[in-house]
């Protein structure tokens, strides 16, 4: 099996997000960048499939040079190869652009694959669009938000999470899968892996080498304003005897909040 995994470099979920209101963008300084949490499940799943069925795991990411750090982490987890698609354009929050870069890479240079694995959503953009868009561009089946995956020969079955239930989906390979928490338990890097990652050369391909013309990547969403969340007025905090507190809370819900 030739398994491709797509990963993104994102600020860790603890990050305090500060905004530069002049440029309508996030202040990068002081942020700690990590492999997007859902992408870890995608990497782990690829490794488990390789262990069960043989094959190769290649990890791709589109981003600036600093992205190499998360690609090295994937190597340290056990991926065979990693490729950086160099893209220095700062975050646009437009999934179409990213999906075009990825699908172009898969149409021109990295055309041999059985399964494309993604995270269900990247931290920050939170758009959950790149996997479906890549599937559309390559005319492949898709299953998003997957918590269980089985591959048998050239077909697969996946469970995907929906409201209050799971959908069982069948599809043929090659296919696009996006990983949800629950799919597996991502492994830690091993010492051996970390050593291997240190030595590993990560090839860099440019957009031009993939035959991408910048004008084709024109961004379709125009960011007009970026703001911090409105500051919430502090609420009413009480420290009464439990029975009394419960009574006040119930009254609050009925009379002030009017929610019950």
């Amino acid at each position, binding site marked *: 099996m030739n398994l491709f995994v797509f990963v993104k470099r994102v600020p860790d*979920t603890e*990050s305090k*997000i500060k*905004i530069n209101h002049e440029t*309508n963008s996030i202040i990068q300084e002081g942020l700690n960048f990590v492999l997007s949490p859902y992408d870890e499940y995608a990497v782990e799943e690829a490794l488990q499939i390789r262990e069960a069925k043989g094959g190769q795991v290649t990890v791709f990411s589109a981003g600036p040079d600093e992205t190499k750090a998360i690609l090295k982490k994937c190597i340290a987890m056990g991926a065979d190869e990693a490729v950086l698609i160099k893209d220095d354009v700062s975050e646009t929050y437009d*999934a*179409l652009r990213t999906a075009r870069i990825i699908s172009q890479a898969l149409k021109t240079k990295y055309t041999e694959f059985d399964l494309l694995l993604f995270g269900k959503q990247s931290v920050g*953009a*939170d*758009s*959950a*669009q*790149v*996997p*479906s868009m*890549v*599937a*559309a*561009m390559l005319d492949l*089946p*898709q*299953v*998003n*938000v997957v918590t269980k995956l089985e591959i048998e020969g050239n077909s697969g079955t996946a*469970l*995907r999470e*929906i409201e*209050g*239930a*799971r*959908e*069982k*989906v*069948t*599809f043929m390979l090659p*296919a696009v899968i996006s990983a949800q928490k*629950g799919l597996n338990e991502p492994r830690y890097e091993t010492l051996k892996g970390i050593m291997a990652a240190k030595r590993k050369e990560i090839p860099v391909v440019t957009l031009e080498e993939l035959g991408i013309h910048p004008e084709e990547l024109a961004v379709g*969403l*125009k*960011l007009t304003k*970026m*703001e*911090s*969340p409105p500051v*919430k007025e502090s*609420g009413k*905090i*009480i*420290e009464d005897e*439990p*029975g009394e*507190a*419960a*009574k006040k*809370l*119930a009254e609050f*819900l009925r009379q002030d*909040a009017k*929610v*019950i």
Partner: protein
Amino acid sequence: MILVYMECRDGKIKKSSLEALSEARRRGDEMGMETTAVLVGHGVNALAPDAFRYRASKVFVLENALLSHYSPSGYTKALVSLIEEIRPEIIFFAATSMGRDLSPRLAAELGVSLAADCIQTVTKDGKLEVRRPLFAGKAFASFTFKTSPQMASLRPNVFPLAEPVEDQGETIKKEVVIPEDQVKDRVVEILKAEGAELDVTEADIVVTGGRGMKGQENFDLLRELTSVLPNSALGASRSAVDAEWIDHQHQVGQTGKTVSPSLYMAFGVSGAIQHLAGMSSSKFIIAVNKDPDAPIFKVADFGIVGDLFQVIPPLKEELKKILSE
């Protein structure tokens, strides 16, 4: 024209689709645009009156036996043929699990960008502007569109439903021709979770337990509260899920679900930033925690500093009393 995708589950149009339709009509009236809806599936024709009730002037029905179960590739093909014919300026989806699966595939097929999980839409110079959270609600961004149709998915439970009317509009059936091999991914079965409890994303009231619940068996205390409260669901922090006290379907937060119920009640939840990410857009937030410095109190509208095990039993009785009045 604005076109709104009507998601059908269990023989009904989902409420979140009707919310999206209600919002579409508000924008449509401002922009002088007709507001229409589309149903996709098999035997969904009968649901058109619901869309009229929520002010669609036309309902397009795309039927084909191959589409009786959801398929992102199949549904996309069906929608593309309609959209190329009627050329809407704006397309709305509800940002449900189906909407978030289908809308980006459709957008890519149409070659346009999509703003996902929006929490506000406005008319600006005759065009659409949408607002959506980034970084799980740690920032908010507004977007306009350079591609057409302008496409957005709207977060459930955020947009008010319109007052239903008894209007009748025009139902337009479209023949859908799809070669079988274009239906590449098929839902073959729906497995209902745990006694078909209401999902946290769909509930009006979410009752959440954190590590302070101390054990699996104590979640029964919260289940008793949900049994008293109408249209409520059980939520959990990641710590509670990781301890295997409850299934991760219930997890709220950055790596769980994003909810915006009318009322969010957090018991024994500290309010870590990743938890707040999933619930801070709730309309009212209640917290019970024994630590007066717990960060959850910063977002709470009403907080009780105290032992949840002592607060829950009288609270249940008080709620029962009030709800029976």
